[in-house]
């Protein structure tokens, strides 16, 4: 078990920088999820921690030891790959024992550890099979088992569930969470799936174009997104973003005045999550929404529409709410749950 710290870590490929200085302190036993759109540098960052990519600048330490110059095998980490990377010519047992045999553990010890991990992951029946005789979900579990037996200082997981179908993904997600709770090994988990990110993480790193936009707990990221990118990336459907203008003691947005204090004369962006809009009372100031489409999901429904000035807006209503296509209704934001960002920098005020 170990803490991991990244200090101003950068990565360039032939002069082109793709990771622009990431700082991250991970506590011992913490489960950190790195989430972001495709190509933002999640895998690159993880592979630098693993030692599979050289670190162009900055410093990475695992358990207080700077590992910049160390080979992967000297870092005491285990990794689960997106394609599982099981050794195709070895049985499940041999796959799991591979690292232990290299570490020169005794036969009995290896046997014992493999059996224990196999039990945790329900792999007992499969130990003598080759990877090609396993289903996707079983392969995934073997990959987890191979990481688990080594009892490393840290787990690194790169989109380990992305090759599974939706149902299995949910199942494995819960299993991974439970497993990590049991063994309490420091973990870094990379995904582009925000549900996975929100449910698994003790702490979340939201990345965009090689920059860590925000590092915080899932709740804080949801409630107080630091930038418009984070606000738009986390949450489904995405947060409504309305161009606004500060008036000192109020805010002008879509031709309306909202009684929200905002710096006078500044161009702003007002963020409102779909669930923070409600039908306005007769006296309440609100937006005239022209509903164009309604997505009904059972428990609730999303009404997609636009305002008089053409701005799109999504509203979440209870599943039984009488909102229909082509309805016109007046909606008002919950004053306590508004997000204000600077229109120029995208940063939260």
């Amino acid at each position, binding site marked *: 078990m170990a803490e991991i710290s990244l200090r101003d870590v950068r990565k360039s490929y032939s002069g082109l920088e793709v990771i622009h200085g990431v700082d991250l302190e991970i506590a011992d036993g913490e489960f950190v999820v790195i989430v972001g759109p495709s190509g933002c540098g999640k895998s690159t960052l993880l592979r630098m921690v*693993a*030692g*599979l990519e050289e670190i162009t600048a900055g410093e990475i330490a695992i358990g207080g030891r700077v590992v910049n110059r160390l*080979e*992967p*095998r000297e870092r005491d*980490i*285990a*990794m689960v*790959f997106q*394609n599982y*990377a099981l*050794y*195709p*010519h070895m049985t499940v047992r041999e796959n799991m024992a*591979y*690292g232990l045999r*290299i*570490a020169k553990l005794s036969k009995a010890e290896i046997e014992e550890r493999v059996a224990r991990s196999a039990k945790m992951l329900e792999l007992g029946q499969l130990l003598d099979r080759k990877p*090609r005789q396993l289903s996707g979900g079983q392969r995934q579990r073997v990959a987890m088992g*191979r990481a688990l037996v*080594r009892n490393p200082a840290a787990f690194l997981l790169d989109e380990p569930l992305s090759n599974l179908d939706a149902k299995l993904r949910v199942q494995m997600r819960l299993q991974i969470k439970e497993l990590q709770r049991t063994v309490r090994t420091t973990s870094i988990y990379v995904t582009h799936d925000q549900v996975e990110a929100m449910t698994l993480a003790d702490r979340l790193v939201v990345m965009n174009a090689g920059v860590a936009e925000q590092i915080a707990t899932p709740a804080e990221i949801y409630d107080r997104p630091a930038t418009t990118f984070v606000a738009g990336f986390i949450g489904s459907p995405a947060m409504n973003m309305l161009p606004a203008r500060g008036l000192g003691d109020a805010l002008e947005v879509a031709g309306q005045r909202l009684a929200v204090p905002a710096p006078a004369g500044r161009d702003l962006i007002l963020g409102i999550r779909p669930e923070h809009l409600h039908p306005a009372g007769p006296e309440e100031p609100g937006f005239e929404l022209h509903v164009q489409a309604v997505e009904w999901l059972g428990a609730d429904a999303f009404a997609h529409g636009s305002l008089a000035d053409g701005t799109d807006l999504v509203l979440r209503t209870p599943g039984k709410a009488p909102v229909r296509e082509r309805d016109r209704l007046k909606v008002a934001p919950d004053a306590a749950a508004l997000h204000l960002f600077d229109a120029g920098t995208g940063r939260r005020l």
Partner: protein
Amino acid sequence: MHRAHFPHRLLPWLLVAPQLLISAVFFYWPAGQALWQSMLREDAFGLKSTFVGFANFRRVLSDPAWLNAIQVTAVFSLLTAFFSMAIALFLAVQAEKVVRGRAFYRTLMIWPYAVAPAIAGMLWLFMFNPSFGTLAWPLRQLGIRWDPLLDGEQAMTLVVAAASWKQISYNFLFFVAGLQAIPRSLLEAAAIDGASARRRFWTITFPLLAPTTFFLLVVNSVYALFDTFGIIHAVTGGGPGKSTETLVYKVYNDGFVNLRFGDSAAQSVILMGIVIALTAFQFKYIERKVHYG
């Protein structure tokens, strides 16, 4: 499977006729001739031949010179297959590590394959001829009594070197392709599991190359057995003594030099049997040899 239907019964035959014709003219006819010839005995002047059944075979199989040729062939083939594959594999692994100019490097590696066997033989002869060879003198400076024209083992070394050198390119190409088919993440996973570069090679790369290695083993054996006549002819002529006389070379020697057609034909029939066996072996095993997915 979908069966193709032809409007004519004749058309399919016409379509395969050229291929059949070529096979007939260049394989079945000479093979038949050899088979017939192997049962005949010619008199000393080549005027008259008599049918002798399997007598030629009996004589060949009990001939110490032929048994010697088998031994020479086995040594030569094993050494050639081993060195040409081992060196090619080493070079392919090194080529994988080259980042810049990889294509250029690979192209260079492929050139020797375009050299005809006899020319390759001459090349090595010129380099290592004891009297005028460029590299013979340095060898002698190193204290080696270099004289492949008299020393059988040195002669064998030289033909093995020439034959291996020529085949390295071919093997290299296949090994490069084989290496590229191994997913990078497997080696990365092994690296994280604690394996050193050497261990990764022997426990991951090498086993996963098995289908390629097996295929090349058959191809190289066939090459060493049958396609190296030109090299041996150019470099040693089978000598000194009979120390580099392989089975194929002996067929030539007995038939075209000593004019013992019956013996020579019997030997080539035996060789034909060996080729057929090897090919059958390859077809039988290579198709279902370890297939990973």
